[in-house]
C-alpha cells in the first residue's frame, strides 16, 4: 500500500515474529505436557494416597466420559449454570451501563456492588439454603452473586473511562444521547465490558461448584464430594479437571467471539 508514513519505519515491524498462531499453540501444548509430566512424577512418588499420578486420572477421565458419570453430573449442573450465566451477563451489563450513564443511580448501587465484590461472598452461600432450600434456584443465586458484581463493576468502569474529550466532541456536533452512547461510549467501554464478562463467567463457575459442594449435593459438586468420600481420588481429580476444562473452553470461546466481533486492530 502507498503509505508515505511507513517509508522510514525500522525493520522491526516486518522482521522476526514471535508467537505466530501455530507456534503459540505448540508452546501451550508444551506447557501442559510439562505440568502433566511433573504431576505424573509427583503422583508416583507416593506423597499421599489422595494424590494419584496423572495417568490414572486420565484413564478415569476417559472412562467417566463413556460410562455416563459426567453426562449425568453435567445434566444436573449445566441448566442452572446456563440460566445463572445469562442472568449474570445480561443483568450485569445492563446494571453496569445504567449506573455508568445515569449518575443518580450511582450512589445507590455502587456500595452494594463494591461490598459484593470485596466481601468473602462465598461465606454467604450456605445461607442460601435457608432461603431457597436445596434447589436449582439456590445454585442460580449463588452464580449470580459471585458473577454479576464483577460484570456490572467492569461495565460501569468502562463507561466512566470514556475520554471526556470525545464526549465533548459528540456534544459539539450535537449528537443525540442515543448516538453518543452507540458510537462513542459503548465502543470505548467495549474492552472493559468484555474483561468484566470473562471475570464474571469465572465467578459463575466458582459459584456453581461452591453451591454444589456446600448446599446442594448434586451435579459436578456432588461428583467431587462423593468420589473423595469413597476415596476414588483419580475420579475426583478427573471431575475437577473436567470443570476446569469447561470453564477454560468457555472463556477461550468468549475471547474468540470478541476478536471476531471487534478485531483488535481497530482498538489501538
Amino acid at each position: 500500500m502507498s503509505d508515505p508514513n511507513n517509508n522510514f519505519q525500522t525493520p522491526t515491524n516486518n522482521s522476526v515474529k514471535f508467537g505466530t498462531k501455530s507456534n503459540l499453540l505448540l508452546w501451550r501444548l508444551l506447557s501442559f505436557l510439562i505440568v502433566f509430566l511433573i504431576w505424573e512424577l509427583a503422583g508416583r512418588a507416593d506423597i499421599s494416597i489422595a494424590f494419584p499420578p496423572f495417568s490414572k486420572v486420565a484413564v478415569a477421565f476417559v472412562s467417566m466420559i463413556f460410562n455416563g458419570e459426567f453426562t449425568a453430573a453435567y445434566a444436573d449442573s449445566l441448566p442452572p449454570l446456563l440460566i445463572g450465566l445469562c442472568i449474570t451477563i445480561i443483568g450485569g451489563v445492563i446494571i453496569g451501563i445504567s449506573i455508568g450513564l445515569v449518575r443518580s443511580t450511582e450512589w445507590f448501587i455502587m456500595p452494594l456492588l463494591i461490598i459484593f465484590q470485596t466481601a468473602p461472598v462465598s461465606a454467604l452461600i450456605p445461607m442460601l439454603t435457608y432461603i431457597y432450600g436445596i434447589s436449582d434456584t439456590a445454585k442460580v443465586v449463588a452464580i449470580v452473586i459471585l458473577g454479576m458484581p464483577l460484570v456490572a463493576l467492569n461495565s460501569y468502569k468502562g463507561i466512566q473511562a470514556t475520554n471526556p474529550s470525545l464526549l465533548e466532541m459528540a456534544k459539539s456536533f450535537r449528537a443525540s444521547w442515543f448516538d453518543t452512547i452507540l458510537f462513542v461510549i459503548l465502543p470505548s467501554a467495549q474492552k472493559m465490558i468484555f474483561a468484566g464478562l470473562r471475570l464474571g463467567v469465572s465467578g459463575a463457575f466458582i459459584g456453581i461448584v461452591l453451591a454444589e459442594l456446600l448446599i446442594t449435593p448434586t451435579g459436578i459438586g456432588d461428583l467431587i464430594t462423593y468420589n473423595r468420600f469413597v476415596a476414588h481420588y483419580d475420579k475426583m481429580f478427573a471431575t475437577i479437571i473436567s470443570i476446569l476444562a469447561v470453564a477454560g473452553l468457555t472463556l477461550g470461546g468468549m475471547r474468540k467471539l470478541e476478536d471476531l466481533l471487534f478485531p483488535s486492530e481497530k482498538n489501538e
Partner: protein
Amino acid sequence: MDDIILKTEDVGVIYDGSIVALENVSLNVPTGKLTAILGPSGCGKTTLLKVIAGLIEPSTGTVKIRDKEIIGPGPDRALVFQDFALLPWATVLQNVAFGLRAQGVSKREREKTSLNYIKEVGLSGFEDKYPHQLSGGMRQRTGLARALTVNSDILLMDEPFSAVDEQMRRKLQEDLLELLKIENKTVIFVTHSIEEAVYLADQVVILSGRPGSIAEIVYPEIDRLGEIDLIRRQPRYVELVDEIWSSLKSYVE
C-alpha cells in the same frame, strides 16, 4: 466597518464557584476573517472558545451570533480540538463523517461529502486508516475535515497545531490559509504562539491571565493575497511579533 458575525458581551466564567477563569470579555468577530485568541497557557483561551462553542455556559454575559443569543452548540459553529478528539476505533472516513451522521445524513450522502473534504485537506488514500496509523499532522487534518463537513459558517480551533512538530505546524498553517481562500469561513483560532497568531490572523486578541480578560487587540493587516511563504519575510510581520511580545511579556511573569 466589517460585518460582525459573532460577539461576546461581558462574558465571565467561574469554575467551581471560586476559580475565575474569564472576566468581562467583550469581543467582536468580523465575518469571513480569522481572529486569533492569544495568551499564555492557563489564561482562559480554551474556556472562552468552549463558551463560544456552547459547551460551557458562561457565568455572566452572553454570546450572540448575528445578534441572536446562543444556547448550546449549533450548526453555525464547528470545533477542531487540540487533542484531535478522533474515535480510535473508527477509520478516517468514519471519523470525518461523524458530524454528518449525528445530523442524520444518509450513509451515501455523508460519505460523498466526507470524501470530498478528505481530499480537500490532503488525506486522499487514507480514508480507511485508523487514527493510530496516522501522524499527528494527519490526525489534525482529519479533525479539520470533520469540522468542514458540517458546513458551518464559523470554525473554532483550539490550539489545533500545537501537538505536531514545527515543520508540520508550518505546513498545516500554510495549508489552512490556502484552504480558507477556497472556503469562506469565519475562524476563531486559539494559540499561545505569537508567530502563529500574526501569521494567520486578521485580528489578534491578546488575553491577560488570571482572570482572563482582553488586554489588547492588534490588527496585523498583513498582505496574504500573494505568495503565502513570503508572509514571514514581510517587515510588518517581524515588527508585529516583536510588538506583541513586548506587550505580552508583562503577563508571563
